[in-house]
């Protein structure tokens, strides 16, 4: 098996005494895409944020395989996290809210380089041009503001910002949910191409199960803050073991009009 990039053990987080995630444990392997699915409120985003320490978890271990070896992220002080942040990045859901409207595309993509100490202006510009090519944005875009771009283009800007530091792991939190299907297809293809070229490891938080089935290798199913089932995509989608997974899968409306929607009932399943 490949290297374990991320090893999460017994991760917990409560908000005001209400548990948001409970005893989450899993491994994330290099260059794989791990899907995290579940209904709203199941703890998907909280889990992603706890791992990146965008919010502080209450307890547990998050072991990350950094370029300098294994580290337990939760034991680090904030200052010590900073160099590691280069290796783990995030792409957000809303391409309108996640870009500062008063910064140009160049400033947006350049900021991570400035923070992480790439001092030479020329070098930064060179990196920015490289990344624009990679995400298939025109170089003319550099001095324009986010409002001049469509949703799909903005998402490319968000991806460029995440990838400019050449991270190892990228957390995609509902990255394609807000996009039209054709644009969604372009961004999914782009994420897959980038993964192949750059050996990226993705944690892919999504509620759209068809998208998850398409791009993920393995999946964690979350329900009320717990992982109720995990496995390869085919295992989980074709042979779900847990009632909650069965409920979720039965609720997907098939695009084939001959396959009738026949959702299971939450109560008869005892959920």
């Amino acid at each position, binding site marked *: 098996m490949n290297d374990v990039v991320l090893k999460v053990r017994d991760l917990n987080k409560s908000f005001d005494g209400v548990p948001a995630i409970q005893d989450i444990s899993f491994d994330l392997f290099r260059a794989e895409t791990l899907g995290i699915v579940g*209904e709203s409120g199941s703890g998907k985003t909280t889990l992603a944020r706890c791992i990146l320490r965008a919010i502080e978890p209450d307890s547990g271990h998050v072991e990350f395989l950094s370029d300098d070896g294994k580290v337990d992220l939760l034991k680090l002080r904030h200052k010590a996290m900073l160099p590691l942040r280069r290796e783990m990045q995030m792409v957000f859901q809303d391409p309108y809210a996640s870009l500062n409207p008063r910064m140009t595309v160049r400033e947006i993509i350049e900021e991570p380089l400035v923070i992480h100490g790439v001092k030479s202006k020329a070098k930064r510009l060179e990196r920015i041009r490289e990344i624009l090519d990679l995400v298939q944005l025109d170089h003319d875009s550099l001095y324009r503001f986010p409002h001049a771009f469509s949703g799909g283009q903005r998402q490319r800007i968000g991806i460029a910002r995440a990838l400019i530091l050449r991270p190892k792991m990228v957390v995609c939190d509902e990255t394609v949910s807000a996009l039209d299907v*054709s644009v969604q297809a372009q961004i999914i293809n782009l994420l897959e191409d980038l993964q192949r070229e750059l050996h990226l490891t993705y944690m892919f938080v999504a*509620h759209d199960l068809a998208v998850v089935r398409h*791009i993920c290798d393995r999946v964690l199913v979350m329900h009320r803050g717990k992982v109720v089932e995990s496995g390869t995509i085919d295992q989980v989608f074709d042979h779900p073991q847990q009632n909650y997974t069965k409920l979720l899968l*039965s609720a997907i*409306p098939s695009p084939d009009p001959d396959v009738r*929607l026949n959702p299971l009932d939450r109560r008869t399943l005892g959920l």
Partner: protein
Amino acid sequence: MTDNVLEIRDLGVEFKTDTGTTNALRGVNFDVPRGKVTAIVGESGSGKSVTANCIMRLIQRPGRITSGSILFNPTSTESFDIVALPDKDSLIYELRGGLISMVFQEPMTALSPVHKVGDQVSEAILCHRNVSKAEAWEEAAEMLNHVGIEDVSRRINMYPFEFSGGMRQRVVIATALVCHPEVLICDEPTTALDVTIQAEILTLIKRLQTELNNSILFITHDIGVVAQISDYVVVMYQGRVLEIGSTHQVLKDPKHPYTQGLLAAIPGIAPPDQRLSTISDVVGDIDITTAYPLTTLSDGRKVSLPQEALRKFSIRRTSETL
């Protein structure tokens, strides 16, 4: 001759903005058959919601209906053109919520946060019928029960924030149906909901439609939802209709390259190990932006394509044009 509850012809809408005029609808033509579910599907900006707003006469400045007609009950003696109604005509008020009502995407925005659920549902009754408040409240309770809200006697006195998203959408549906409208317009009613709740709401809408036998115009961008809920599909793109047919025709055997592209882009249809096609991959250099008239094919569906692209299909030879 099919029995249509709405016939939309050559509908044009423009929005005047600082940067110029946007033609949101550019000659939209389709029918809403009685007692059936018709889905409008398209990407954002295709004009789905603008079409719905025209039917409810909700287009406001800087928007303006520039052309066309929307005939309500075209075969009845009391037929009228919704577009031609003067503003503030009493018929417009009867239309909104009485003859046609609407379910919106975001149930929290559609409901008032400061009124009890029961008051909001019974308000719809009081607006349209001459009944006492107590009677309206009674009917509201009945309708809430009908849309699957349990423990109505307690819940009817609660406020929307005390309801979950799915329950709120049930309240919106109850409000929309309480005056027994002939047409129910659902504008992305399940888009904001979890997939499990979406399945419940779709099942509910389908059940109510069978029971009440009303006509539904269902707007969505989700092909899975279209496949499950609708009898007919209208495919829109850039303010025009590109293809109309039965759900089976359009989804199983799309004829218009844009529809083919739209379907090829869906992760649920493409095999997982294959790259997704984008619409432009499929459409290629076929012209889909020029407003070609809708041509009826021999299987009854209608497509908007240039003459040379139509050659490979068999075309219905009648004088009926649409």
